[in-house]
């Protein structure tokens, strides 16, 4: 063993390499200088690699750098021995160094081919730059979209922390972006518990729509919002967070509030009309009658006639107030949605009308089993008005005929069937030229002396039909009867 080791350093039987060069000084020094430069250069490369690796901790496959460094160092050592060999024939040691260098070179060469496919896949700097620019562009685009929204937009992590916000969010909360990000999203709502509940719902359902919440501003100002949120997923399909938008509905709330106030005022007005406006009329009528009863004998016929006119005008005023109150009532309040037997209502109304004028011969033809969904009391108002109008305008007919039936029509767009209700009479009719005035309040097509009325009835009827999402119109000819058509929304 010792002999083998001593052989490595035994130079006695060997010749320095200088003899091969015939000790030609020029050739010899060119060799020496070149080899020394090569060796020095090779030795410097591992330091460069070490420096690079230290500065770039992100670089992967660091073992490759070490391998490459060892390989270059081994190469450098062989050149160093080339210089030594010129004077000292340490060929055995040189051989050992060359074996090591060979192993390192081969390993490096093989490893290079092994990693070649993945090395080729690694993007070039230019490719990276292009991709980076593209990414910057789309990020910029997404950011400007988010910022362009007037609605506060927020992304919330699975832990309920705010991840991103837009300027609108800063404005509505009065909190800076940096402070918003990372904070708990629910703390900006007036009801944090409710906000968290909505958040849970997004996870359960995937979204929430138009959930009413209110957001605090640091100044104490509260903004009413409708909250819309969707869960969004990462590449692997897992829910990564919630994307939420809050729509400011302050303006709408203000309008709703104003509408409520206006409605309350209208109701108070109707209440006052109902209570206060009728009482004086009763006084006028009552005291006119008292005058007639107690002092009638001292008044001549004309004076008594005047008092009668006062009374009839007073009563007409009373009727006007009642009709106006009804018109106002049908515009307000909730609408019932119940099954309504229109045939039965028409039957009752017709009997009442016949009783009111027992001397007249009126033939009512009412189709049986006409029914619809709607508000029974309001639909009775419709039928009462239309049927009593028909009675009124057939007063001059010796044989009045009033019909109520339906026709099944089909919707032009959806082809779904619906009922078209018809009330037809053989009365005096009217000129279609004035038909557009028919449903306006206080509009009358006949002289009050011939056909008394307040002109509010058809306006009321139209209001009720409209509230049932229906339409109403009429067809008539002078002296050839009138026909009223109406639909009641989607009843079929």
């Amino acid at each position, binding site marked *: 063993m010792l002999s083998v080791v001593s052989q490595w350093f035994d130079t006695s039987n060997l010749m320095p390499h200088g003899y091969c060069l015939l000790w030609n000084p020029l050739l010899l020094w060119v060799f020496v200088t070149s080899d020394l430069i090569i060796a020095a250069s090779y030795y410097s490369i591992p330091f460069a690699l070490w420096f690079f690796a230290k500065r770039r901790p992100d670089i992967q496959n660091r073992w490759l750098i070490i391998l490459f460094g060892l390989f270059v160092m081994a190469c450098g050592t062989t050149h160093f021995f080339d210089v030594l060999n010129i004077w000292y024939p340490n060929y055995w040691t040189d051989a050992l160094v060359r074996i090591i260098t060979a192993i390192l070179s081969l390993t490096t060469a093989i490893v290079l081919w092994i990693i070649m496919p993945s090395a080729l896949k690694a993007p070039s700097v230019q490719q990276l730059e292009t991709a980076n620019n593209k990414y910057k562009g789309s990020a910029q685009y997404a950011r400007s979209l988010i910022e362009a929204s007037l609605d506060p937009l927020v992304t919330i992590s699975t832990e309920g922390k705010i991840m991103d916000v837009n300027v609108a969010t800063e404005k509505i909360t009065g909190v800076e972006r940096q402070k918003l990000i990372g904070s708990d999203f629910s703390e900006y709502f007036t009801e944090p518990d409710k906000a968290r509940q909505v958040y849970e719902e997004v996870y359960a359902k995937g979204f929430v729509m138009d959930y009413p919440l209110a957001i605090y501003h640091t100044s104490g100002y509260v903004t009413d919002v409708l909250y819309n949120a969707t869960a969004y997923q990462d590449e692997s399909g897992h829910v990564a967070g919630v994307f939420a938008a809050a729509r400011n509905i302050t303006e709408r709330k203000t309008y709703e509030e104003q509408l409520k106030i206006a409605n309350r005022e209208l109701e108070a007005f*109707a*209440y006052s009309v*109902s*209570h*206060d406006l*009728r*009482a*004086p*009329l*009763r*006084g006028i*009528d*009552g*005291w*006119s*009658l*008292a005058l007639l009863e107690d002092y009638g004998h001292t008044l001549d016929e004309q004076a008594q006639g005047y008092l009668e006119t006062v*009374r009839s005008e*007073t*009563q007409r*005023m*009373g009727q006007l107030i*009642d009709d106006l*109150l009804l018109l106002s*009532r049908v515009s307000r309040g909730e609408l019932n949605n119940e099954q309504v037997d229109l045939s039965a209502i028409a039957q009752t109304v017709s009997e009442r009308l016949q009783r009111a004028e027992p001397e007249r011969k009126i033939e009512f033809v009412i189709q049986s089993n006409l029914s619809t969904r709607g508000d029974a009391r309001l639909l009775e108002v419709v039928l009462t008005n239309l049927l009593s109008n028909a009675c009124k305008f057939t007063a001059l007919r010796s044989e009045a005929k009033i019909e109520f039936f339906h026709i099944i029509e089909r919707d032009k767009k959806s082809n779904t069937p619906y009922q078209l209700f018809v009330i037809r009479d053989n009365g005096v009719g009217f000129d279609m030229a004035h038909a557009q005035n028919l449903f306006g309040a206080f509009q009358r097509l006949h002289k009050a002396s011939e056909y008394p009325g307040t002109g509010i009835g058809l306006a009321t009827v139209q209001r009720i039909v409209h509230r049932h999402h229906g339409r109403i119109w009429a067809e008539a000819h002078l002296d050839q009867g009138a026909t009223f058509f109406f639909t009641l929304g989607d009843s079929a």
Partner: protein
Amino acid sequence: MNTKTILLVEDNPSDVSLTRRALVKNSISNPLVVAEDGQDALDYIFCNGEYSTRNFSDLPVLILLDLKLPKIGGLEVLRRLRADPRTRRIPVVILTSSGQEEDITAGYDCGTNSYIRKPVNFTDFAETIKQLGLYWLVINEPPP
């Protein structure tokens, strides 16, 4: 002669006179006491204030009650009458101008026995008073 009192709670003097006239016309001869507001009506019934000397047990046989009254409204008067076991059975007829649905339902909810809307036409009004008197003072069996 009938000596049982009718209490008319009504603030409009013209309406008071017309009611009185209608009662006379229909020969309803019960004494008529008029209270011009809700407070006055309660004072009369419960013998308070200027009515402190009145005999409480002499309760009115019928109360004709208007709704829109100064101080205490008609519905509140009715509520207090119905809340007291001594007065809860007195027949009360709401006699008012309003036919508003909310008034009618509130009236019955508070325990009125009848709700009558005063017609504008005095002939109709007089007829209403006649029917009312006939029903509540003659036909109806009053509480003991």
